[in-house]
């Protein structure tokens, strides 16, 4: 059963240095508040998993919290490069970053296999691409009925998955809606699940398109209003597109980045 805890306590208990951590949310519901708490607590040597690293992992990578990144598209959506990600990969700053790189279809299916507790998933993908030459988690299987060769991707089973949702009830049942992305799969693939929410409510009234994660599939729920900012929570906040655009300048220079992180993230609590 999920316990309702402070974000600080939940991160301290569930996210450990050296863990494989997935913070999911496909553009929507990205758990920035939890990532900032991870940075503040000095958790490090993480293997970060996420389809779209986005600004959230740019920050973790730039602060040196990651040793490896598992991903499929590493840009600032609609804006340009993730400069901290590029600096880590190209120049090893602040530390080298190992990569395991997939396509979106491959990553999505890796989470599906993880949620299903299968060791791999099958897709018609990667054909002719150089991607398999750089990844040990892409292989092939042959259909026993037709003889067709298909791509196989290894399951992802994070030590901990962190997601943001609109709300939870007092039992810890979690409800999210809008673009639901791959959050259910990422949560169910993990050994431990931390969910930040906009608010705790008495009753989860049914909502169109809502996904409910029952309390017994979640370890901790922490209230973090606007906890997806600069991403958003449909029905509560809107995407701060200006911030995404401003991030380009903030993150381009190492010192500017570090100054911003110190003032905005490390100084907070």
């Amino acid at each position, binding site marked *: 059963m999920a316990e309702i805890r402070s974000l600080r306590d939940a991160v301290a208990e569930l996210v450990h240095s050296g863990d494989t951590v997935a913070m999911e949310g496909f553009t929507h519901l990205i758990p920035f508040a939890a990532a900032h708490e991870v940075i503040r607590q000095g958790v490090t040597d993480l293997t970060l998993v996420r389809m779209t690293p986005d600004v959230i992992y740019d920050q973790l990578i730039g602060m040196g919290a990651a040793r490896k990144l598992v991903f499929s*598209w*590493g840009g600032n959506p609609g804006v340009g490069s993730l400069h901290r990600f590029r600096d880590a990969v190209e120049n090893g700053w602040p530390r080298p970053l190992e990569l395991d*790189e997939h396509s979106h*279809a491959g990553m999505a299916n890796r989470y599906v296999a993880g949620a299903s507790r299968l060791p791999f998933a099958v897709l018609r993908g990667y*054909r002719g691409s150089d*991607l398999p030459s750089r990844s040990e988690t892409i292989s092939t299987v042959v259909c026993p009925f037709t003889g067709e060769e298909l791509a196989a991707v290894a399951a992802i089973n994070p030590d901990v998955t962190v997601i943001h949702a609109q709300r939870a009830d007092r039992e810890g049942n979690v409800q999210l809606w809008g*673009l*639901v992305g791959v959050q259910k799969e990422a949560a169910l693939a993990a050994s431990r699940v931390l969910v930040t929410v906009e608010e705790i409510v008495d009753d989860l009234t049914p909502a169109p398109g809502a996904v409910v994660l029952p309390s017994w599939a979640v370890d901790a729920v922490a209230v973090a209003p606007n906890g997806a900012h600069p991403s958003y929570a449909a029905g509560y906040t809107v995407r701060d597109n200006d911030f995404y655009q401003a991030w380009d300048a903030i993150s381009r220079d190492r010192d500017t980045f570090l100054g911003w992180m110190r003032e905005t993230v490390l100084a907070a609590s």
Partner: protein
Amino acid sequence: MTWTPDELMTVNAARALAGARTCFVGIGLPSAAANLARRTIEPGLVLIYESGTLGSKPSRLPLSIGDGELADTADAVVSVPEIFNYWLQAGRIDVGFLGAAQVDRYANVNTTVIDRGPGRPEGRLPGAGGAPEIAASCGKVFLVLRHSTRNLVGTLDFVTTVGHGDGPGSRERLGLPGAGPVAVITDLGIMRPDPVTAELTLTDVHPGVSPEQAVAATGWPLAVAADLRVTDQPTEAELTALRRLT
């Protein structure tokens, strides 16, 4: 009215969607073109974004593929695994519309890394995203990018996404179900695979562009079609609709 080269590119990309029913939309230039098509030549076009929206009808151009309006205006919102498995892989999408960092003469695409020469670390690009499977499974594919020798190269540094592989028959040998790239739309003109060699050939230039300009901006000896056409000027309606979008 006057127009910019980028507007020329986007207007022509939108026109390419005439007759399409469903379009899997990459972010950036493809999204601008697909949304413009919905407002001009193909009002019933079903826009599908990899964030899981089927039939989005945004009023303004979304900055990202996950802007709230894409979900709010969609006929259906599904999970990311579902959009890739049940909708894209299943071959339900007519057109895939992709941007690209590097494209070679067979319309193969690199969005992964740039070789910056000996002793220098690779330059990092965003990566594959949905492109490998979009290019594999959509009925046909349009690429849209700016025309320069930096973007249109003799040899890709990395093959992220297969267009026509190493030439005729390549897609069949690889088992790629869709027809692959049928046009590369740039700010100078349009290149299409030659029916025999599958090599990208300049078939159209935009008004005011010479074929020599396009050849000079291409990183391989670009063939020019015997019946080279000039694309129609953007209409006032097209330009107005495009400028309202952004």
